[in-house]
């Protein structure tokens, strides 16, 4: 069957793709999309370590993944609310143009 390393390398690739999106997209919503990819890569690791761990009745990995789900939902709600609020004031969602806090 599939060894643990395949899951970990898959998650590392997905994380790197998300990191590329965060670092190089201009649109603030696209940056949030990249963050979602990175969170999903982390969750794959947590589920894989649960399944391949010593004791499969120890549910820590899955519980941790569920907490990550909740945090991701909270992060997206607040992030998109901020983007919409900034769009209403400045009429832009390009991250480079959002420099209201720059002195």
């Amino acid at each position, binding site marked *: *069957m*599939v*060894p*643990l*390393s*395949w*899951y*970990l390398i*898959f998650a*590392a*690739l*997905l*994380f*790197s*793709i*998300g*990191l*590329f*999106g*965060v*670092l*190089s*997209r*201009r649109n603030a*919503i*696209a940056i*949030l*999309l*990249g963050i*979602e*990819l990175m969170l*999903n890569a982390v969750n*794959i690791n947590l*589920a*894989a370590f649960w*399944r*391949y761990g010593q004791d*499969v009745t120890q*549910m820590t990995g*899955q*519980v941790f*993944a*569920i907490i990550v*789900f*909740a945090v*991701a*939902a*909270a992060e*997206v*709600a*607040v992030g*998109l*609310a901020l*983007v*919409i*609020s900034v*769009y*209403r004031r400045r*009429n832009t*969602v390009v991250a480079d143009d959002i420099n209201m806090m720059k002195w």
Partner: protein
Amino acid sequence: MTGGQIIFLLVTLFTLGSGFMVVTTRNLVHAALWLVSTLFGVAVTYALLNATFLAVVQVVVYIGAIAILFIFAVMLTRKDMRDQGPQMNPNWWLGALLSVLVFVGLFLLLQGWSGLSTTVADLPVGFDSISELGNALVSPDAYVLPFEVASVLLVAALVGAVYVAFNRK
């Protein structure tokens, strides 16, 4: 190559390809739809790992709520449906270089770890991961406190999101 490995590779290719499209597509609505297919691939990965509850929650919460929220936000923040101008930073190659370096670093880190070739053990007979997970989430010996903290965080974040996006006249 066994059947399980072939299925895993197909799911991986599908997920990574969609993920790559998420970060490179010009049209943001298309990027959000590619995100839906990436999330679906991750849900299939959970199912391959026997984490059935996570697979269902992935479809319901991520695809059903978060991806739809993204599509709403994309539609609310554009004057017209065309995307003009570049969608990447001028120094996007620096981001690409850094993410390749992060992947190489993670790969080398994994290479040096002895538990890497662990193979999967069969699930115990009569093992029900959903009831075990439910017990773990509400048992005082296990994770009831983080569970409650997560729900408080979710309420606070949603109230905050409504407050931030509220249109005061």
